[in-house]
């Protein structure tokens, strides 16, 4: 049997199976789901470097499933994080209700995402896209009572995006008579410019909703925040990447990046791409600023996710090999560190039962492993060397500077600086500072949860040390699928025309200096004495339990005062008002149906009379 349908079959099958036999007991349902994902992951690994394709006809349309380096690249993210999330879930979901439902939705989501990346035609792309939407919707509404608003918002916005994409797909179909990517890739340049721009905009809306580009992001914080923690990791780490994959297809495989015909270009980038770049950059900045103000850990991460995805889109829209490499590299990074962080927040939630930053504190001594993971996570997220986050950021800036896009570069830099704020807030309010007495007995999470997080941490250290392997993979995808000339690579140093940085040297320097200072410092001096949490300078007062010593509420209050112009405006509220006004309009309209028989009869007569008056129209 062909591998691709086999993988899809295994995944969809294990989804159904875990739901059906999951009624029996816990081990079975989780076991089936995990086994399904692992086995399909194994088959997927074997696809590396192969170019398989599987075609059949459905409803008179050609359906193509194929694998290429780009698909493999995204499939790697899906399975990599998917397996870890599944392992994490085994203990996380223990003793929770409706685990069968959870396993079903998890497998469905992974299956549909894999379906998306192996789709070689727009129809199956859209088909799997919709399955992914509702499967993840099921996950968003897992905590059902409080999740309603988040779920419906997510679903409706996804539908708007999907339908806008559908129109684009069908417009393509109307022009070409086929759904296949290849045909579109070769036929794109023959379209008229306005048609290309229309397609670009419609596709961008469709992918932009999933990738949470501002102002289409409003579903993301609620949906990420509401879904169970392991799934949030998958949601932000991989599911949002499907939007990114869409952009990759749009810009490079379809060829929208180099709009044919007479379109204004700015800095060598076509105007629509340039506008998209601004969307990406502003998303990065504004979402970051909003993230700084969040008190809910998952919402904070969600907004940060929106911001980071903005970077990725910025990278893509530059339409250069450097930018694309940056975007794809950052996509991997984002998957890794968002996986780490969401899983850690999940672990903290698992033990403490709260996600409110202001309610936690001082958990470092209780959950040292989790702290370590979050520490590495935020270092990566902030893009501080020597971890892998820096490589991604470096590539993005170099790509921007290469194109001489100064303002975009400044905005991107600023967003990255502002990201320090929420990074620190996240780690401080949860793990540092004073611990509330009720969390004194909190323990570290079990190994099934610790292991996935630690694995991801190792990965980020490795990539920070030696990004060459991944960059090479990206280069392959670029040259074979995306029609770009990949950037020059060297095993030891990252470079382009503008500058260079040696990740190995950075890692070595930091490591060596740290070891030397650490050894000197700890051998020259006696051990210091450990004191209690409350043994701090409080002007001599011995603080009682009623005194709050943890500064976690309104952490960046002065900052919020200076960016209140941003915070006062909310796209979410705007949409809410718009929807309300629309419903008010519908309310007026529905009085066409008066409920009065005479009126209805009058309608019939009027209809007839009207038709008789305008008979010419009908001939």
């Amino acid at each position, binding site marked *: 049997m062909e591998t691709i349908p086999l993988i899809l079959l295994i995944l969809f099958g294990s989804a159904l199976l875990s739901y059906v036999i999951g009624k029996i007991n816990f081990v079975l349902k989780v076991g089936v789901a995990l086994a399904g994902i692992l086995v399909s992951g194994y088959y997927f690994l074997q696809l590396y470097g192969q170019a398989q394709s599987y075609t059949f006809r459905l409803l008179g349309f050609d359906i193509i499933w194929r694998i290429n380096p780009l698909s493999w690249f995204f499939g790697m993210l899906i399975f990599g994080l998917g397996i870890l999330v599944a392992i994490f879930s085994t203990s996380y979901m223990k003793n929770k209700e409706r685990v069968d439902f959870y396993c079903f939705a998890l497998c469905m989501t992974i299956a549909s995402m894999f379906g998306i990346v192996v789709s070689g035609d727009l129809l199956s792309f859209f088909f799997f896209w919709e399955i992914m939407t509702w499967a993840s919707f099921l996950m968003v509404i897992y905590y059902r009572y409080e999740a309603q608003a988040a779920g419906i918002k997510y679903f409706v916005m996804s539908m708007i995006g999907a339908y806008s994409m559908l129109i684009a797909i069908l417009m393509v179909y109307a022009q070409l008579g086929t759904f296949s990517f290849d045909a579109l890739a070769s036929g794109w340049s023959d379209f008229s410019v306005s048609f290309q721009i229309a397609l670009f905009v419609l596709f961008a809306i469709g992918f932009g909703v999933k990738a949470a580009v501002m102002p289409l992001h409003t579903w993301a914080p609620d949906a990420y925040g509401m879904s169970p923690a392991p799934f949030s990791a998958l949601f932000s780490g991989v599911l949002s990447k499907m939007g990114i994959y869409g952009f990759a297809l749009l810009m490079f495989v379809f060829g929208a990046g180099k709009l044919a015909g007479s379109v204004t270009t700015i800095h060598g980038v076509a105007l629509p791409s340039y506008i998209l770049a601004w969307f990406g950059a502003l998303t990065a900045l504004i979402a970051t600023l909003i993230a700084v103000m969040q008190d809910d850990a998952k919402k904070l991460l969600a907004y940060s996710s929106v911001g980071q995805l903005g970077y990725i889109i910025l990278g893509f829209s530059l339409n250069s090999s450097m930018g694309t490499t940056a975007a794809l590299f950052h996509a991997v990074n984002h998957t890794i560190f968002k996986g780490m962080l969401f899983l850690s927040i999940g672990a903290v939630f698992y033990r403490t039962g709260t996600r409110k930053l202001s309610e936690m504190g001082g958990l470092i001594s209780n959950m040292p492993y989790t702290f370590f993971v979050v520490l590495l996570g935020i270092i990566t997220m902030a893009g501080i060397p020597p971890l892998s986050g820096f490589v991604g950021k470096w590539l993005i800036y170099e790509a921007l500077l290469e194109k001489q896009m100064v303002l975009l570069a400044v905005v991107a830099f600023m967003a990255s600086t502002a990201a320090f704020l929420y990074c620190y807030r996240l780690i401080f309010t949860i793990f540092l500072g004073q611990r509330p007495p009720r969390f004194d007995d909190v323990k570290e999470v079990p190994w099934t949860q610790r292991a996935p997080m630690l694995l991801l941490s190792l990965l980020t250290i490795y990539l920070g040390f030696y990004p060459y392997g991944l960059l090479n993979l990206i280069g392959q995808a670029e040259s074979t699928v995306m029609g770009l000339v990949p950037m020059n690579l060297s095993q030891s140093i990252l470079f382009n025309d503008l500058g260079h940085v040696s990740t190995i040297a950075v890692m070595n320097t930091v490591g060596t200096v740290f070891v030397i200072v650490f050894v000197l410092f700890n051998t020259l001096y006696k051990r210091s004495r450990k*004191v209690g949490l409350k*043994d701090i300078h409080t002007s*001599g007062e*011995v603080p009682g339990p009623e005194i709050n010593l943890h500064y976690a509420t309104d952490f960046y209050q002065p900052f919020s005062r200076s960016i209140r112009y941003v915070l006062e405006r909310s796209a979410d509220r705007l949409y809410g008002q718009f929807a309300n006004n629309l419903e008010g309009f519908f309310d007026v309209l529905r009085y066409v149906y008066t409920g009065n028989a005479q009126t209805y009869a009058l309608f019939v007569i009027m209809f007839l009379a009207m038709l008789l008056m305008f008979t010419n129209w009908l001939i």
Partner: protein
Amino acid sequence: MKEDWGKEAGNIIARWARKHSLWVLAYGTGCGAIEIPPTMTSRYDAERFGITGMATPRQADVLLITGYLAVKTLKRVIRTYEQMQSPKYVMGFGSCTINGGMYWDSYNTIKRLDDYLPVDIFINGCMPRPEGVIDGFIELQKLIDSGQANGWKKYQDNLEWYRTNQKKVIKNWKMPDYNW
């Protein structure tokens, strides 16, 4: 032999450094607090001796107690002293710290600071002028240089005695353990 030499050299340097860098935590109780600003600022400029004010006990070397200590304040002063890092010095400032001063028969003011904390040097007067304060600091520097300013050691060695005295006046002793 060689080790001793190294240690000795280190001690000399350390003493010299300690002497010339006195970071003061001024515990401003009573009227003495008003004498500190002129001491530190342009008129008398204590900074030229390396004397600087510090905000927290963790960073400070000298605890300057400027005036009478009520029982309630004493508790805080002890706490503050115990949070400082050794070597640390206590300066009693004004007659109140010596014998209660004008509050000699008050039911709520302690009479002898050295019963509760190891005072390295007293400055008498009610109040002592800034010149007196600086003189006190110079005396302290001399003591440090000669290795006599070892109140912190005394406190460690006689902790029991100090604790008994402290607990005598502080009825409700709810304090963390001393960690030096």
